[in-house]
């Protein structure tokens, strides 16, 4: 897989939380790759492990969570342009090496712009901090860099914003400042964890446009975590769908929306209300709810809610990932010819 295009290659990532009630396998063997300059979306409902995956990459999984297995190869470009992989999973979460990457090479935008800035420091102080840590520049130069980035992120009068406190800005402005902080060291990977969920639709439009512009300008890859399929359709190039700590489907964005393979993805797509003239129809729902993480169902974890449930197969055997055409992956027994025979409508080419 040594390919110039690949920036981050995650293989078999497992993150577990050892709690009194039992071990929660928040991320249970996740594989994906992020390509340079591209956007990968991670979609799923709450508790599917999408945020924990993001935090595992940066080594900031909240205690008592631990990365217990897997590789996260980050292809870092050094000064003379050669690329060498660093396995982020083996780095100590507070060691030197991850600290030189976190905030500089890989940075993160959080969901809640209200709580992710410290209220007691000025915006400028908090944006300048990563520059002073990662670059050999004076405070005055750092101020210039910070103000320039604030301007690019569309904050009016950035010199004034630099000396304001986070609570003096509106939600949309604060999220812009958050993005400025994340991009100020020109990362090659930006992890955005539900960056627009707390915002109004019109502000969301502004922020998504801004992220697209900055991606074109700075060429970073984005790992975009969201539960909103409408946002996915707009920003993603590739999508992975997660359910209970596992990737159940991976595809490019068009295949995912037009030819979803996994019953979970299909059901998710059917359950969102869309604007249409024929109203008053009932929405299709996914029966039941996400099982509690201490008692993950046997076999395929989705089987108790699955409309295509095959007794004796789905509740017994855990489905592997099947490779279908065009790099489309689905974790579902429907794509196993031996098990299903000719029930399938499309042949699996593995």
């Amino acid at each position, binding site marked *: 897989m040594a390919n110039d295009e690949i920036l981050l290659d995650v293989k078999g990532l497992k993150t577990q939380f050892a709690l009194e009630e039992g071990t929660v396998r928040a991320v249970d063997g996740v594989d994906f790759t992020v390509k340079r300059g591209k956007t990968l979306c991670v979609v799923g409902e709450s508790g599917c492990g999408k945020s924990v995956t993001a935090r595992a990459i940066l080594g900031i999984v909240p205690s008592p969570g631990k990365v217990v297995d897997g590789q996260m190869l980050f292809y870092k470009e050094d000064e003379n342009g050669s690329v060498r992989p660093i396995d982020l999973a083996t780095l100590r979460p507070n060691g030197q090496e991850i600290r030189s990457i976190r905030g500089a090479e890989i940075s993160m935008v959080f969901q809640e712009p209200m709580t992710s800035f410290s209220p007691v420091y000025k915006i400028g102080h908090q944006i300048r901090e990563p520059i002073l840590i990662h670059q050999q520049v004076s405070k005055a130069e750092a101020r210039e860099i910070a103000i320039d980035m604030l301007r690019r992120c569309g904050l009016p009068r950035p010199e004034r914003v630099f000396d304001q406190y986070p609570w003096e800005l509106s939600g949309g402005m604060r999220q812009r400042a958050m993005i400025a902080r994340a991009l100020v060291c020109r990362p090659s990977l930006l992890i955005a964890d539900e960056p627009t969920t707390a915002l109004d639709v019109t502000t969301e439009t502004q922020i998504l446009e801004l992220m697209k512009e900055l991606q074109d300008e700075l060429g970073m890859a984005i790992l975009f975590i969201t539960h909103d399929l409408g946002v996915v359709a707009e920003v993603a190039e590739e999508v992975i769908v997660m359910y209970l700590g596992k990737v159940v489907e991976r595809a490019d964005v*068009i295949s995912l929306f037009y030819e979803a393979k996994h019953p979970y993805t299909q059901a998710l797509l059917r359950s969102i209300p869309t604007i249409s003239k024929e109203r008053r129809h009932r929405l299709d729902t996914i029966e039941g709810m996400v099982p509690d993480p201490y008692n993950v169902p046997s076999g395929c974890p989705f089987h108790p809610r699955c409309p295509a449930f095959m007794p004796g197969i789905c509740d017994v055997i855990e489905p592997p990932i099947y490779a279908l055409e065009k790099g489309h992956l689905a974790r579902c027994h429907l794509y196993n010819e031996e098990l299903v025979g000719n029930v399938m409508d499309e042949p699996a080419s593995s």
Partner: protein
Amino acid sequence: MAEPNGNVILEVQDLKKHFPIKRGFLNKVVGQVKAVDGVSFQVPTGTTLGLVGESGCGKTTTSRCILRAISPTGGKVLFHDEKLGVVDVVTADKATLRQLRLNMQLIFQDPFSSLNPRMTLLDIVGEPLIINRVARGRAVEERVAELLARVGLRPEYMRRYPHAFSGGQRQRIGIARALALNPRLVVADEPVSALDVSIQAQTLNLLQDLQAEFNLSYIFVAHDLSVVQHISDNVAVMYVGRLVEYATNEELFFNPKHPYTEALLSSVRRPDPLSKRERIVLEGDVPDPSHPPTGCYFHPRCRYAKDICQSETPPLLEVSPGHMAACHFATELTLQGVG
């Protein structure tokens, strides 16, 4: 707006809620936040009114004023009660209000903070029955069991505490509580925005089923336009405390008359990567309601704004039958709906 008639359950007329801004040692009032500033609409019996707008536009304040959870500064909220006749909620005395509240209930947004963690489901859902002396003793238990079953929860769970339930289940508990007194009007303030997609669909279906079964009228406050389009009969759009447009669902979504509505509709995201629609990116933020712009509040962000918009406030006028818009150019502009 349609003429008052017997089939209307609620009429809101020129509703105002101003919050004073107090400063200094003597708490001098230095200004007013006009959170709701002259809102009028009607809710026909058995229908759903969707109330949309961005945060800070006054939609939640409006819904609270209707229930008189907070007292409005001015205006009328006329509730058509079967027994009491037409009652103004704003001026009603305590005893009348008590009667009225049997018929008007609220579903909250956050299913985690709106249920008391120290009360069992029986206490939570049964409390309105006991307070209003509708039932006592075993009758409460029977009614709670019936309600829980109706919203899709197992009646055996009534002695459990809210922490044992997921977000979607808690929202069902909130719905069961709102239904306990057989209300006629339910105000739902962002009832699904805290829920996951699959749970959101279940909850919306439940709300629709209950509406059909009990002939409920809903005021559905939300910011997600796809959800509002799915559930509403009529839609009111608010901007900085005022109503900018009011129309039937189909008119509003497919033939909008206010530039703000057009911009809102253009930011609706569709689950379709191939849909290439023009997005209207609104510059700047929603104005501060304590210092709103002159004239039309939307003019600094409006791409059709002309000189008149800066100086004169456009009234809410009927553009076509039943379709109201507050824009100087409502009849002249050709605006893009969704479609």
